[in-house]
């Protein structure tokens, strides 16, 4: 769902619009500044080099399955190519592949026939995989760098004892809006702006039920992890009410639609919002105080792993301060890594969109997996909401269709009858 292949979309955008989106996000970096700051090369130093060389020359390889555009590739000058650095240091070769949604990852693993050693699903998917026994417990003796993970991000509800996952990145959902048109002060912007009829047909909404329901649930004052059918129905009604002023239900398209000023208001993930804002100066991003979803993507090892120890080494490597910094600097999300956080630009460290204050954070909820029934209810309500027609259209569609079918059948029968008459003569 999140962290879509930004690159693909910017290539498309470039082709169609002739506009180029920047994918780098270190705020305020212009081309000129980069020239003068040539010395700012990222370097790699690891604490315990001996730990990493155990598998050297043993021809070990691991399969890593990650989100698209979710690791530092060294493409930007001066940054680290994380995978190559890992291969050089350890002698383990890495097969690196990417997915676009948690559901895609789940379907792949569930379908069998593939082995992955490291995967990076999001919170609710991790709890689903733990429940279905798809991922295995980690040996934290092999992951000493876990010590860097901030206390706040350990033992989350999706993995209460933190035995299965090592947090990689996190982020929040907020509202991205055009501040030149929306004349509400930033601090007053709340989720109900998405129901404000003054902006009818200028509002975009998530095209996936979990995120869309979460927003409706905040507005209705419900829990983001509710499984009560009544409460889900309430949220669905809220979304139905919103439908008439929603311009469209979108995911990745938001990059272009907001960037080109097609719409004024849209909810989206913080890291991606920053990317969108680079292409359109009049946009602003705000995380409402009334609460939101805090998502965490964490590294896990599936049961199918062939080289658990090498996989744990990879996870540990990803938690090396230099590597964690290089990654977070590249993908623009927020980091749960204390040492990498300290290396960040102070401007980003103090940006409430990236690192909200503890009071705001207290209002945020991390998704856990819902029961199959609740998921099914949500999916059904969502489909119902999306396929509901505006009044008047639905009434006529079915009869017209039936009449046309009937006419065709009558026509065919009449034609056959005439023909059979003709044949007699």
């Amino acid at each position: 769902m999140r962290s879509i292949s930004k690159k693909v979309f910017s290539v498309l955008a470039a082709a169609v619009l002739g506009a180029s989106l920047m994918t780098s996000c270190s705020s305020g970096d212009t081309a000129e500044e980069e020239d003068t700051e040539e010395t700012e090369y990222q370097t790699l130093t690891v604490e315990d080099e001996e730990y990493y060389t155990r598998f050297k020359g043993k021809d070990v390889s691991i399969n890593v399955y990650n989100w698209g555009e979710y690791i530092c590739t060294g493409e930007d000058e001066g940054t680290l190519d994380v995978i190559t650095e890992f291969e050089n240091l350890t002698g383990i070769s890495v097969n690196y592949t990417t997915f676009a949604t948690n559901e895609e990852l789940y379907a792949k693993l569930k379908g069998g026939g593939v082995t992955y050693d490291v995967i990076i699903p999001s919170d609710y998917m991790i709890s689903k995989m733990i429940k279905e026994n798809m991922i295995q417990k980690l040996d934290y003796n092999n992951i000493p760098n876990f010590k860097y993970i901030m206390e706040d991000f350990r033992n989350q509800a999706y993995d209460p004892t933190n035995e299965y996952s090592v947090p990689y990145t996190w982020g929040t959902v907020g509202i991205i809006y055009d501040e030149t048109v929306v004349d509400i002060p930033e601090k007053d912007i709340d989720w109900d702006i998405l129901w404000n009829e003054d902006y009818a047909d200028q509002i975009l909404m998530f095209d996936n039920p979990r995120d869309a329901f979460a927003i409706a649930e905040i507005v209705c004052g419900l829990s983001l992890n509710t499984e009560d059918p009544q409460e889900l129905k309430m949220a669905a009604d809220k979304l139905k009410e919103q439908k008439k002023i929603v311009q469209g239900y979108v995911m990745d398209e938001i990059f272009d639609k907001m960037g080109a000023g097609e719409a004024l208001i849209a909810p989206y993930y913080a890291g991606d919002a920053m990317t969108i804002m680079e292409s359109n100066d009049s946009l602003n991003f705000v995380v409402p105080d009334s609460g939101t979803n805090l998502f965490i993507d964490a590294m896990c090892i599936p049961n199918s792993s062939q080289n658990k120890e090498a996989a744990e080494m990879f996870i540990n490597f990803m938690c090396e301060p230099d590597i964690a910094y290089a990654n977070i600097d590249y993908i623009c999300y927020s980091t749960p890594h204390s040492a990498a956080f300290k290396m960040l630009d102070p401007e980003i460290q103090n940006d409430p969109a990236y690192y909200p204050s503890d009071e705001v954070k207290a209002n945020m909820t991390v998704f856990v997996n819902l029961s199959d029934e609740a998921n099914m209810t949500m999916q059904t309500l969502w489909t119902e909401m999306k396929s509901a027609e505006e009044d008047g259209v639905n009434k006529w569609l079915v009869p017209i269709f039936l009449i046309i079918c009937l006419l065709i059948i009558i026509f065919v029968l009449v034609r056959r009858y005439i023909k059979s008459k003709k044949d007699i003569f």
Partner: protein
Amino acid sequence: MKKLKVFSAPYLVWMIVFILVPLLMVAYFAFTTDSGKFTIRNISNVGQYANIFVRSIWLALVATAVCLLLAYPVAYLLSRMEKHKQGTMLLIVMLPMWMNFLLRTYAWMTLLGNNGVINHILGIFGLGPYKLINTSGAVVLGMVYNYLPFMILPLYSVMEKIDKSVIEAASDLGCNSASVMWRVIVPLSLPGITSGITMVFVPAISTFIISRMLGGGSNLLIGDLIEMQFLGNSYNPQLGAAISLVLMVIILVIMTVMNQFSPDDQVLI
């Protein structure tokens, strides 16, 4: 002849492994629960999406009809042109198909947008802006645009074979141009019409990316519904298979009706 049969073996294997077996798997999934027990609940659950089915069929029918109306004159004119011009014109018809399907649909998003090219040009003359994108009309437009060549090509290839002297003979025998069209050209091009309709209608009814990109996500089609069962937040391949199965049956019924117009009995007259 017998020797030639050997050469069809690779395709037979292909057909069994990649067409027949998957079809059986779809049927198997549609009639079982996740623990593998027989059930008809999946099929009966499809009933609640009746309005999505009706909308998909309706939009696909409209798109097919528009394609036919647009393509028929084009194909006729094309087939009556001089030979060397035909090649060039055909190339122009095919040209958009060289571009990626997704990119073509994506381009329509920029054209139809509220601040898009069309509304911008209309704005110069003080018109609009009109709501063009995120409507069912936009979805039909996307279907027509993407599948039009599939209508033109079969029509053209049939019409090209109509002998000029047949038309001349009809005129000699006293047909005016309208009845030449209706009594000679249309009956002779019927096979092209039926295969053109099949080639447009079937992909149009099961498309999903067009409705997502141009319909704004609120014009759900069957294709979207099936996709949601596999990659949505409730992983439900059983329901997805059931929907696919019902869709196949509907297409089969519609194709059977279409075949009533098949030219086999034309020959008898």
